[in-house]
Structures are given as C-alpha cells and as structure tokens.
C-alpha cells in the first residue's frame, strides 16, 4: 500500500518537474549530442576511461599542471591548487571575458594568457601537445556538468556576431554552418551523419585525426570543407562562434574528453 501511495504522491511532482523543464526550453528538447549518434562500440570506448585515448592527454596534463614553467618558475597548481576543486565547472563557462580585458577568450586562450602573463613562459603553439593536455585536464574536471555560459551582458555582441557567422553563407560551396547543422542535421553527408554541432565533447579525440584536437581545429575542418579560407588560429571569429555554439548547447552535459569518428 505504501509504495502505491509514494508513487501516486511522486507522480505529479515528477510530471511537474518534467513540464517545467520542457517549458523552459520551449517544448521537448530536440538537441542531440554527437555522442548519442555514435555506434555503441565508440560510446563504450569513450565511457571506459581505460580505453579512451584522450585520458593519455589528461594524464599528461596532470603532470604539466604541477610542473613549474617560465621565468616566474610557477606551476599552474601554485596559483590554482587542485583541479578537482578550483577548475570544476570552469570549462562549462568559457569563452569568457577575463579581468581587465574587453574581448572574450576561450579556454585555450585563457591557458595561453596564464602561460604568458603569470608564468612568463612562451606562448604555446596552437594544437601543441602541451596546450591540448592542459585543456584536456581542465575540461576533465568539469565532466558531466551542464554547459552554462555566463550571463555577462558584454558577451552579447560577440555572441550575436557568432550567430551571424553561423547563419551566413560562405565559401565556394556557398554554405552556412546552419545549412548543415540546423536544416539537415540527422541526414547524411556522404557516408557520415551530420551532427547538430553541439560542442559537448571538446577537446575531442577524433579517430580520423588519430589524436586529440580542439574545437578550433574542428571549426577549421568545416571551413575548409565549405571551400572557404580558414581564419588564423588566434582569430577572434572562432571565439565568437564558440560563444554562440556554447549558448546553443546551454544545459547539455559536458562529456569531458569525447571520442568522435
């Protein structure tokens, strides 16, 4: 008898919470992470930290975190302490506008800033093993948390620029990001499934790359595929686009180190 009462009592509460969730997002959430459309074998490869090669980068990042660098001779840990506490949720917020700056930076940009100003070390090369390892280690501390872009009003114009870029036709093929990832998501482009382009797993271990790569590298891939000139790695356009993509994926779970085909 008691269990029935509990179920009866709990049912309206459960329904109400589902309703509010659906309402808050304007109906049922139709968004899908690329993870959900991967084969079960790849999902398992990502979930098992032992077979996820991205974990090699996390391990390398853990070593770098404690290693003093640059003229200042400071390590990341000297200022920030353990990632489990200091970096938890950080990756869910970026791109952000750092203190004393007027333009947003992404997580890689933030690491570069720390490297050059706090540690007074050289600027890490884009997609270098060290930068990827640190980004992976910091992102790993936020695994499973919902993507939560900050409510900073100064970000709005940059985000709007990113949205305009997402919807603007470009390149010899005259395609916009939205042509594939909004209008035709779920269909096939050659043999590959077109994902909805939610940045839930970055930095990702992409099997095609045989290594870990940043969201920028992935965006450059798409730009080249559209037969347009990819921006330089430090171009502000990527950050604007990332801002829009993170806002679009707001509330979706950050996977930590994702695997993608």
């Amino acid at each position, binding site marked *: 008898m008691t269990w029935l009462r509990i179920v009866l009592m709990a049912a309206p509460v459960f329904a109400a919470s589902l309703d509010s969730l659906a309402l808050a997002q304007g109906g049922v959430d139709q968004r899908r992470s690329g993870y959900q459309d991967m084969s079960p074998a790849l999902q398992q490869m990502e979930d098992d930290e*032992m*077979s996820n*090669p991205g*974990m*090699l980068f996390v*391990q*390398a990042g853990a*070593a770098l975190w404690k290693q003093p660098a640059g003229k200042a001779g400071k390590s990341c840990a000297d200022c920030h302490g353990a990632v489990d506490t200091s970096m938890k949720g950080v990756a869910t917020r970026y791109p952000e506008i750092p203190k004393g700056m007027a333009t947003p930076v992404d997580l890689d940009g933030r690491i570069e800033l720390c490297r050059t100003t706090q540690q007074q070390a050289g600027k890490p090369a884009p997609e270098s093993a060290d930068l990827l390892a640190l980004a992976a280690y910091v992102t790993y501390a936020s695994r499973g948390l919902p993507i939560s872009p900050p409510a900073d009003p100064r970000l709005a114009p940059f985000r709007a620029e990113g949205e305009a870029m997402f919807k603007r036709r470009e390149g010899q093929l005259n395609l916009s990001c939205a042509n594939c990832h909004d209008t035709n998501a779920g269909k096939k482009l050659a043999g590959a499934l077109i994902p909805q382009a939610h940045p839930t797993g970055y930095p990702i271990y992409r*099997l095609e790359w*045989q*290594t870990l790569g940043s969201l920028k590298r992935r965006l450059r891939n798409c730009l080249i595929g559209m037969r347009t000139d990819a921006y330089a790695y430090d171009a502000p356009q990527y950050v604007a686009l990332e801002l829009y993509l993170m806002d679009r994926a707001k509330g979706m779970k950050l996977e930590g180190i994702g695997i993608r085909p």
Partner: protein
Amino acid sequence: MTNALIKAPKTAKRGETIEIKALIQHPMETGFRPGTNGRMIPRNIIEHFSAAWNGEEIFRMTFSPAIAANPFVSFFTVVRDSGTVVLRWTGDQDFRVEESIAIAVT
C-alpha cells in the same frame, strides 16, 4: 616523455582469470604517408609488446603499421604467484618502454 595507462587488479585469488589493459601514447606512423613537404614520413611504429609475470612471459604480440595511434591492448591471464607483471613495448627509433605493476595473490 612516455605516457601509458595500465589497469590491472591489485589483488587476485590464485587460479582466477584476470584482465590486464594497457594503453600507450604512440603516433604509430605507418611510413606510407607523405608529409606537408611531400616527402615520406619515416615509419615509426611499436613493433612488439610483451608481458612477463615474475620474469615468465605470459603474453606477446607483434604490431603492424595498420594499427591505429595510441594502441590499446587487453589480455587475460591466470593468476599464479604474487609478484610483478612487466609490460614492455619496443619499436622503431629505439622506442623502448617498460612499466611494471604489482599484483598480490590472496
């Protein structure tokens, strides 16, 4: 700097079958790809992997160029005595890595 992840039980019962998993960072360059300068990138692969329990070989495999970067190996073995399992990867360009794990038999 070599980077490897190994998973094996710390304790096991005598006669039990256990799984040992090993993941290692390696480019596994095939030797068949041209680089950005048009020249072939020289082959750089892991050639052999072996595991020895207290010095006695329990597993061995030969790698080929078709194996992907950062190879993952998993194998099973029957537990005998307490001791260390030494995993050894050797390959091109004097690649040589040894990692050991201690397993206590209860």
